[in-house]
């Protein structure tokens, strides 16, 4: 007889949310975690710690530029990196505890050790305390992802570092080179740049932020970041690292020309890859795709009956909230309900200052699908709250169907874009039109009104722009 209805391997946002949901729905659940702390990459070395550092450094930046707001002596302000890291660790620890408490409340048994898939219905957990076999009706693999390493410049933790290191540097590097202008590179690049590091971001693509963003959005973000001192080297292919008299340098080439960027730290943030280390996928006969991701069907089931997988270890955007939605869906399906994830409405955010966010289709994607679009834009420079709050950098762009007025996508560069995008998601989830947004009452004054104005601009009826 099975001990459990569900054994979840991995306590990241996909795994622990699935475990809690399954517990809520009355299933007997075990959650296997190899690390000492719960929460996976997101909570321990990803989303959360980087946000803590981004906040600390933003507070510092606000203070340094506080003269116009009446702050005296701001120019002489200094900071303590160790204290910032300590604050970050405190935030992480608090949330670790919180996840543990939630799991306990839902009667989820946390099993410490490396979970290994033996076969359908059986998970072997190995730890220093010994091995334990869990018998279960269902298994959910949520083992997440790890940073991609460039083969010609492996992580050494000293000069060539990953995001795991990038959130724990003991001192501010004088020169930092970030490889990859995606969310992770831009966020960590911003953190250290705000503390005085000369940061150069080297990106192979012609624009920053990744392919989800339209050129005008990426360009606006880039301009904002350049004003903060970040340098961008776009369209440059990284070739390696070399030792120089001064230390190290990243080498790259662009249009056949060699480039060299001196660096104390080289943060490689070129993406993440599915993590199945120690899972025993091959031995269990678990099918993986050519990129090492676990292959699943429409109901998240792998090729092994009763074995499911979600989150970064399967296909789709590597986002905590995507994993969470999938975790809930699997738990609901197992409990006899109908779980569903709307992949058309998953927001993406870069937590810089200003933030960059998007959901749905970009203008370019819509046009590639031969959809006739109507575009509405609103510059934050025309928003009262943005002016009062010193955050006029950026704009909101609404991409609507020219025929039906349905919201196809929303992109924005704005302070608080990560919060503002939620309104766009809610409207889109219900099939809302630009007019629906325009006819929804937004509090005044808020930066969010820019979203409403951009929606009005779709029909050229924006009130606060010409």
């Amino acid at each position, binding site marked *: 007889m099975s001990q459990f209805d569900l054994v979840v391997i991995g306590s990241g946002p996909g795994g622990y949310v699935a475990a809690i949901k399954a517990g809520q729905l009355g299933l007997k659940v075990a959650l296997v975690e190899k690390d000492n702390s719960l929460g996976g990459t997101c909570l321990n070395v990803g989303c959360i710690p980087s946000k803590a550092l981004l906040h600390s450094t933003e507070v510092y930046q606000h203070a340094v530029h506080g003269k116009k707001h009446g702050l005296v002596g701001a120019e002489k302000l200094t900071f303590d990196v160790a204290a910032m890291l300590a604050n970050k660790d405190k935030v992480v620890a608090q949330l670790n505890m919180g996840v543990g408490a939630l799991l306990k409340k839902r009667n989820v048994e946390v099993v410490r050790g490396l979970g290994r898939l033996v076969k359908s219905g059986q998970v072997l957990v190995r730890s220093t305390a010994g091995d334990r076999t869990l018998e279960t009706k269902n298994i959910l693999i949520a083992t997440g992802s790890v940073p991609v390493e460039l083969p010609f410049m492996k992580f050494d933790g000293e000069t060539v570092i990953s995001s795991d290191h990038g959130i724990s540097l003991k001192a501010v590097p004088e020169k930092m080179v970030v490889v990859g202008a995606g969310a992770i590179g831009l966020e960590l690049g911003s953190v250290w740049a705000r503390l005085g590091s000369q940061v150069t971001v080297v990106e192979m693509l012609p624009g920053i932020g990744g392919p989800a963003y339209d050129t005008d959005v990426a360009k606006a973000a880039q301009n904002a970041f350049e004003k903060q001192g970040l340098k961008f080297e776009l369209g440059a292919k990284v070739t390696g690292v070399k030792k120089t008299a001064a230390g190290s340098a990243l080498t790259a080439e662009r249009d056949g020309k060699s480039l060299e960027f001196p660096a104390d730290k080289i943060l490689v943030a070129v993406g993440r890859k599915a993590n199945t280390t120690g899972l025993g996928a091959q031995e269990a006969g678990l099918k993986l795709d050519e990129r090492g991701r676990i292959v699943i069907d429409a109901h998240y089931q792998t090729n092994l009956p009763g074995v499911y997988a979600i989150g970064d270890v399967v296909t789709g955007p590597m986002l905590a909230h995507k994993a969470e939605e999938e975790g809930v869906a699997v738990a609901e399906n197992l409990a006899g309900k109908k779980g569903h994830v709307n992949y058309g409405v998953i927001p993406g955010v870069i937590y810089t200052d200003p933030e960059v966010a998007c959901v749905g289709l970009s203008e370019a994607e819509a046009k590639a699908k031969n959809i006739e679009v109507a575009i509405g834009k609103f510059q934050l420079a025309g928003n009262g709250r943005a002016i009062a709050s010193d955050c006029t950098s950026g704009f909101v762009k609404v991409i609507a169907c020219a025929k*039906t007025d349905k919201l196809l996508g929303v992109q924005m560069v704005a302070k608080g874009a990560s919060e503002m995008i939620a309104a766009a998601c809610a409207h889109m989830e219900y*099939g809302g039109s630009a007019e*629906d947004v325009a006819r929804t009452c937004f509090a005044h004054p808020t930066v969010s009104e820019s979203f409403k104005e951009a929606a009005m601009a779709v029909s050229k009826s924006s009130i606060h722009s010409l």
Partner: protein
Amino acid sequence: MAVEVKIPPMGESITGGLLAAWLVKSGDAVRKGQPLFSYETDKVTSEGTAEVDGQITLVVNAGTDVVVGQVVASIEAGAAGNAPSAAPAPAAKPAASSAPAPKAAPVAAKSGAAAEISPAVRRLSEETGLDPAGVEGTGKAGRVTKGDMLAALSGQAPIRAVAPAAAPAAASAPAAPAAAVVIPSRDGRTSRKRMSPLRRKIAERLVQAKSETAMLTTFNEVNMAPVMELRKRHGEEFLKKYGIKLGFMSFFVKAAVQAMKEVPAINAQLDGEDIIENHFYDIGVAVGTDKGLMVPVVRDCDQLNFAGIEKAIGDFGKRARDGKIQLPELQGGVFTISNGGIYGSMLSTPILNHPQAAIMGLHNIVERPVAENGQVVIRPIMYLALSYDHRLIDGKEAVTFLVKVRQYIEDPQRLLFGV
């Protein structure tokens, strides 16, 4: 026991139509003989009635195209059901019929959800009058999006007829049949609605008459003074005796019958290459209704007296306006009289009521100066028109017929003697 409510057979040529509106709700108690739904075919609008007492469960939504014999509801015989006035209906007991009856619940849920429409949908609904409840929703959980509304408004998506919610006060009165969905355009300068089956059939028949016959029209004028004089003299007594007014129509029906007897070609029709001569005098009398023109047929007019004709026409007029004309009453006419005069028409060319060979148009009566015996006098004059199928009827016959009609009207005593 559950008794199925089916679309009743309406006549040989009718295979189906539109279930225009429900007059009851799922869960309502119905009584034998009670009208349940209104039903439009290309020929008539009629009602379906309950065959037993019991509680009804609707199976088909209003606005659905149905075929004869189709099950549209079931009645749980003897079950109590809700008084029509009862507020929220408890879930109807599933009917024990072989066909699984859909639950009534989705309908209620739908109308509930309709209240939670998005702001853009609300605006479009209020500006255009299009009820989102009649629009197929593509949004989450079937919600109607702005795009769905625009598609429906532009005619790219179908619109269901929506039965109006029964007013709470109207306890036992059945809900009024749903009016056709009228969709004004976005700028309000035009509006669009689907043709009713009756209107579609009228259109089809009119075009058929125009394209398949050699139709032309001859005219004449008639002095109405003698008939007016007769009505003045005998009208009051006539009304007293028969309970109906002595109108002009009975004179014209009688005159037409007599003229047809003398010009038999008028009372004939073509069937392929054969000529069918009719030896009876069933005359169609065009009646205008808000749903379109109807032509009920007064049977054997040669055997009816004036009162019989007036009564038949009066009865048809009333029932046509109430949508209660039965299909057989529209069939089998040999000749048609259409009176555009009641709307003030001076002169018109009526279109044949195919496959009849001729139609007579009456017009308004206007005092005109005419010459009589070298003197200009004022007479109440009506112009007459006769459209005829020239394939079958020669000009001589058509003109003779109309001249005869004129003579009978101008000298009604001729009708007595048939001369």
